[in-house]
């Protein structure tokens, strides 16, 4: 946005978002888990305008032939394959290598979780996996607990971005880690994609307003009563938050500041 909306206010657009050597015009990454049916998934992807969509890798159920999820994901969307199910770096690396073999690119979301109650990511193992996979040429997007040192290590290890959690996966609790994500936004010279726990478009807008580069949402969309509607709402909120960030918000004041002039009144001040 070179003219900051002054030259072409009818058609204000966001700047493009560069990630892993590609440029994106949309900052909403959509997860594909938990949708009630493929029709809702397909409509939600379209409504979201997402250009990056996550999928997981699992054993095929050889007793029950299943539908293939890739049929519902448009070809022009970048597939981000997660390593969910990995409990340590070694398992994440194995999953990433398998994923690459499928021939859908080399974008990998590293997710290393060894706790079934809180599903918190293990930053140390995630750094190890990132190091190995980035060396092998993967575009690595690590899901992480928002810790500044870990984020630095991930970027040094070759991560293309960091994906700090807003709150626990699938909890819809919103930006519980807000202050720590702000530190990452200020200190880490790489894209910050807020992932996990975003439960409502207003929360996504807040993350973007803070200066996050993108947001990943899955549960809030997939489990809403009308997924395509909330997908659209998220897309709008993310754009709104982004433009708000670019506008450079005015400072907050404790006292009132009149919006109308305090001179030229029709009566005389006594």
């Amino acid at each position, binding site marked *: 946005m070179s003219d900051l909306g002054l030259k072409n206010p009818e058609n204000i657009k966001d700047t493009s978002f560069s990630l892993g050597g590609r440029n994106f015009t949309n900052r909403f990454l959509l997860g594909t888990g938990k949708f009630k049916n493929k029709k809702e998934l397909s409509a939600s992807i379209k409504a979201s305008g997402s250009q990056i969509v996550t999928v997981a890798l699992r054993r095929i159920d050889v007793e029950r032939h299943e539908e293939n999820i890739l049929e519902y994901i448009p070809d022009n969307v970048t597939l981000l394959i997660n390593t969910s199910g990995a409990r340590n770096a070694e398992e994440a690396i194995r999953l990433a290598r398998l994923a690459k073999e499928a021939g859908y690119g080399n974008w990998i979301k590293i997710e290393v979780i060894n706790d079934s109650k809180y599903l918190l990511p293990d930053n140390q193992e995630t750094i190890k996996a990132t190091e190995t996979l980035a060396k092998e040429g993967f575009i690595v997007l690590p899901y992480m607990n928002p810790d500044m040192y870990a984020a630095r290590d991930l970027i040094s290890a070759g991560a293309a971005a960091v994906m700090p959690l807003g709150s626990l996966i699938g909890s819809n609790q919103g930006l519980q880690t807000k202050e720590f994500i702000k530190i990452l936004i200020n200190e880490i010279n790489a894209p910050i994609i807020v992932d996990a726990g975003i439960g409502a478009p207003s929360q996504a807008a807040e993350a973007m307003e803070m200066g996050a580069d993108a947001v990943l949402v*899955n549960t809030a969309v997939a489990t809403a009563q009308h997924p395509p509607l909330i997908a659209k709402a998220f897309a709008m909120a993310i754009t709104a938050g982004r433009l708000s960030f670019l506008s450079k918000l005015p400072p907050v004041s404790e006292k009132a500041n009149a919006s109308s002039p305090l001179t030229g009144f029709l009566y005389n001040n006594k």
Partner: protein
Amino acid sequence: MIIQLNGTQKKLTQASTLAGIITTFTKNPEHVIAEVNGHITKKASWAKTQVKDGDVIELVSFVGGG
């Protein structure tokens, strides 16, 4: 011949290639990724990979995920 396919034992009555196993047990072979005894087996070599007794085969594919 008994093999371990995706964690369960399968008895094969006749000799088979990996390609044969994949066609029999999956719906969309083009999206399948195969691992035999811990090693990724590329699609190009499925047809010439003879399945042996005791082989541990993993067939994976994509599912919805966040």
